[in-house]
């Protein structure tokens, strides 16, 4: 069985656990819906158009929800040393990292779709731009979020600061994702031509690929018990 197949089995196991227990997913979904709800009240739409701030709010909600969720990626495996047993299986550390990142990514995509729908509805954004262009921007951005969250989520498990440590470590590293993601999404909302967006998307892909490779290479240093 090759490593990618093993990683895929870990992804399926994590997603099965996620949907059976549902705690993490439900709390993330509740967070994004309530955030959109509160933004609708906080924003004076007679002074600021919803479309002008939708991109920034979308990325911030995705960032906060994914960070809150990242702190609990390894929760189901903490009981009775399940994670230790996973480490004892003949699966390489990079494969475990890739499997867990892919499961985290699936959850983030669900949250992203919901964030997008709730914010555009609550902020009354009617001209939303091309869905394919939005997906092309959100895909590399969320891969970067998922890989960084999974990597540092494992680290924060052992810290007495717990989930407080996670944003301190991840937010500075995620500045490029938020910057290039939010500016690209804003341009998609404004229906700007693709060449104006493609440069930022290339940088988002560079971050995504870099964070996956670096995470896979260094994961054994944060996962070994």
């Amino acid at each position, binding site marked *: 069985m090759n490593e990618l197949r093993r990683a895929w089995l870990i992804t399926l196991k994590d997603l099965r656990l996620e949907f059976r227990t549902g705690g993490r997913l439900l709390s993330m979904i509740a967070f994004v819906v309530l955030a959109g709800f509160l933004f609708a009240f906080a924003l004076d739409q007679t002074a600021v158009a919803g479309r002008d701030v939708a991109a920034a709010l979308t990325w911030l909600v995705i960032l906060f929800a994914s960070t809150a969720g990242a702190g609990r990626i390894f929760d189901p495996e903490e009981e009775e040393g399940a994670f230790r047993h996973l480490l004892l299986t003949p699966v390489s550390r990079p494969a475990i990292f890739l499997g867990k990142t892919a499961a985290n990514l699936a959850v983030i995509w669900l949250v992203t779709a919901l964030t997008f729908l709730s914010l555009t509805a609550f902020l009354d954004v009617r001209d939303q731009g091309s869905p394919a262009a939005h997906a092309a921007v959100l895909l590399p951005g969320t891969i970067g979020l998922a890989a960084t969250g999974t990597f540092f989520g494992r680290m924060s498990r052992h810290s007495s600061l717990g989930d407080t440590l996670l944003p301190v*470590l991840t937010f500075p590293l995620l500045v490029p994702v938020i910057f290039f993601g939010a500016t690209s999404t804003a341009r998609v909302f404004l229906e700007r031509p693709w060449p104006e967006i493609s440069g930022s998307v290339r940088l988002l892909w560079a971050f995504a690929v870099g964070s996956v490779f670096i995470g896979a290479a260094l994961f054994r240093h944060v996962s070994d018990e």
Partner: protein
Amino acid sequence: MSTRGRITGLALVTTGVATILLVHWMVAFWVPNEASQGVVQRIFYIHVPAAWTTFLAVGIVAVASAVYLWLEDERADAAAVAAAEGALVFGAIMLITGPLWARVAWNTYWQWDPRLTLTLILWFTYLGYFLVRGSVVDPRRGKRFAAVVAVVGSLNIPLIHVSVEWFRSIHPEPTVLKPDGPTLPSDMLATLLTSLAGFTLLFLGLFTFRYAVERLRRRRPAVVSGETDEALT
């Protein structure tokens, strides 16, 4: 701490402080005003050496942390901690003097310019380095995690260097480390190089002391934490 280490550290710190005092004299009385910015440009002789020392410290942390992850050698971790503290302190000097200069030169304290933003990210990463180190209950794991944070953070250094060329940036381009040689007038270059030497010597002296203290602390943890006194009573 060995006598040789103490003498080396003391010599480096003393020479560093003396050189920095000399730099202050040069900045106040010797070097001429820069034509376009006037007197405010003189903060350059503190800002640039602080930045250089920060990157030197970050480089040492990155190499020492990579060695620690590879060999788990306690000396490498002690060197990384000693240099990381230097990176935070000299980084803070750089981040304070930069906005003070920018307020006059750019009419604003801060711009979200790529180089400035990446440098701030680097500083926050090193703040995270100490938070990770201090908050992980198992000290061996804490050292390993901190080393990982340092290695990840150090990937920022080449980006900071090339950011001025890759992106539209308000930050001035390098005037000394250029393929076709420095473009600074000779008296300004002499002041800058003296300041670079002073900051580097001061950092290396503090690093030597801090490394020795860290090694001593690890060698005799019971004495440092006061447990010996409790055991005796």
